[in-house]
């Protein structure tokens, strides 16, 4: 050890008392005190309900009555339940319809509005304004657009002498209609996230690309998109998590119908738990939803990390 041969250093090392177990424990206690407020909130509002929900899902429980431990019977019932399977399928379809649309449309809007003009600022505000509306307002507006009896689209079709389309009462169109409403409602957040990311890309990268004779399209593919890929991942993960939790739009616009064609998992959970009072069964469905969201979000994360590593 070369350093120990230096007298000054050796002397300095002697002067420092050895750190005992009690000193380390005291430091750990102090650290714990700093994180305690958050840990308490995290524990009470997130960890406890999660564990409590898992425990509840192992019981035959009534909203107003006692509970009886039945092991994994609720989960077995769910896998046999056609309506639940339909709800899972609907939810996954809804996520596939909305997440890519939100990501691409958010990016396109951000690219179009990423400039310092007055009109861009006005349009940015306009596109983001839909995000601040409540789900009730949004769905009411879109019902007025979609309903076949005097709705906006029906009136436009009538001008072209075409029959109205019952978007919300046709099994083929109900879920896409809810998806369209959701994209309109939620487009503000991805747009803003992409705008923030685009404004972080150093201007001189674009200047270097211009000197490298890169056209608009090539600059977009080779410079812009790789520079904002982390934001794209964040947008996709956030939207996957949000859209798997579809509830309000389906509840207000279609009540999950017709014939469960637009029934999402959360609405299924709501109906089982708060209309049929079977909260053990609803808790089991909630845990399945939790696992689906976790797997989808982590898959995105790891897939992206794998690509970056190459």
């Amino acid at each position, binding site marked *: 050890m070369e350093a120990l041969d230096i007298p000054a250093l050796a002397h300095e090392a002697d002067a420092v008392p050895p750190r005992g177990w009690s000193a380390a424990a005291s430091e750990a206690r102090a650290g714990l005190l700093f994180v305690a407020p958050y840990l308490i909130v995290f524990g009470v509002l997130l960890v406890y309900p999660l564990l409590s929900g898992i425990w509840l899902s192992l019981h035959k429980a009534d909203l107003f009555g006692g509970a009886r431990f039945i092991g994994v019977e609720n989960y077995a019932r769910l896998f046999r339940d056609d309506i639940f399977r339909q709800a899972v399928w609907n939810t996954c379809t809804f996520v596939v319809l909305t997440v890519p649309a939100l990501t691409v449309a958010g990016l396109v809007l951000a690219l179009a509005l990423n400039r310092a003009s007055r009109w861009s600022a006005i349009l940015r505000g306009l596109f983001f304004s839909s995000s601040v509306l409540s789900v009730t307002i949004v769905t009411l507006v879109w019902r007025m657009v979609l309903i076949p009896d005097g709705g906006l689209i029906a009136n436009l079709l009538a001008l072209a002498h075409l029959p109205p389309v019952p978007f919300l009462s046709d099994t083929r169109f109900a879920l896409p209609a809810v998806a369209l409403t959701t994209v309109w409602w939620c487009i503000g957040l991805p747009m803003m996230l992409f705008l923030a990311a685009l404004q972080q890309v150093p201007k*001189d990268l674009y*200047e*270097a*690309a*211009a*000197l*490298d*004779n890169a056209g608009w399209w090539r600059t977009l593919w*080779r410079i812009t998109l790789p520079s904002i*890929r982390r934001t794209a991942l964040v947008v996709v993960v956030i939207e996957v998590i949000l859209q798997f939790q579809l509830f309000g739009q389906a509840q207000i616009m279609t009540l999950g119908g017709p014939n469960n064609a637009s029934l999402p998992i959360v609405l299924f959970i709501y109906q089982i738990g708060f209309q049929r009072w079977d909260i053990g069964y609803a808790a089991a469905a909630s845990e399945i939803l939790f696992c689906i969201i976790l797997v989808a979000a982590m898959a995105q994360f790891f897939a992206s990390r794998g690509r970056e590593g190459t």
Partner: protein
Amino acid sequence: MGGVSLRGICKRFGDALVLDNVSLEIGAGEFVVVLGPSGCGKSTLLRVIAGLETIDAGEIEIGGERIDHLPPGKRGVAMVFQSYALYPHMTVRENMAFGLDNIGVSRTETARRISDAARMLEMEQLLDRRPAALSGGQRQRVAIGRAIVKEPRLFMFDEPLSNLDAALRVRTRQEIASLHRRIGTAMIFVTHDQTEAMTLADRIVVMNQRRIEQVGTPLEIYRNPATAFVASFVGAPAMNMLPVTAVPGGGAFQRVALADGAMVDTAVPAASRKGALQLGLRPEAVRLCAAGAGDMDATVAFVEFLGDKTHVFLSLAGGDRIVAVAGATAPVREGETVGVRFDGGDAHLFDADGRNLRIMA
């Protein structure tokens, strides 16, 4: 490989004029350094040549071909940015290949050029790394390499050494000089550092307040500054500037009187000069001697020992401050009175507009 010709370039940002009728001829293979203080328009000049800014008036030609209407990628120029502007998600090899891919250079040719440039810049082992895994000096080399592989008609450097530490700056400066000798392409190098300008340039273009003040070789700029601004901007320590009045009695050359009445005989041809003049004396033209033995006496205000020489800051009787360069072991102490002798043969006289009368004569 032709030269570069700028004629009457004007550039405005809104109401602000940033380039005012700038004209400049750069020979083929010439290394020109644009030197000036912050905000003088030197970086804008580079950017209008590169096509990153449009011009409001004037013409730009490279090799006899007018290029000011062309987009940046079609001008045949390459630029090394102050921040290097390397693409962070690409490897060094991809950074260098990007521009060549865009103009349809074949893969074999691209590989050859990258290999040649990497060998020239001694960065072959860096080709598969990304910029984040490189030091500042290595990034600088990659930025230069990316410019070299394009085989441009004109290289441009926008303060490329300002992010490097002092030792690396000296080394990179030498490498850029050596690179220029090897490839022989015209280069424009923008800096506010006069050492970089003096050591690298075939010719220096000194800019001030949106205009070119003087164009000349480093020695010309140093020895015969056209204006008071150039005289005080180039050289460290800066040229001493003292207010003087022209007095008769110097024969064919101009004699001037300092504020305290001391006379200095210059080598500037005499003429009917009126109004305020400024006497410009390089610190090495101010000699120290024993008190009472020189043109005047002065008090030593401050001494800087630099090892190889000493900067002696002096207060004159009239209140003016000047600096002299003395030997490494100058026997002076702060507060001491010393004699000062001016080497009038090296003196410059500037008129009220700041023009050097020695050059105008």
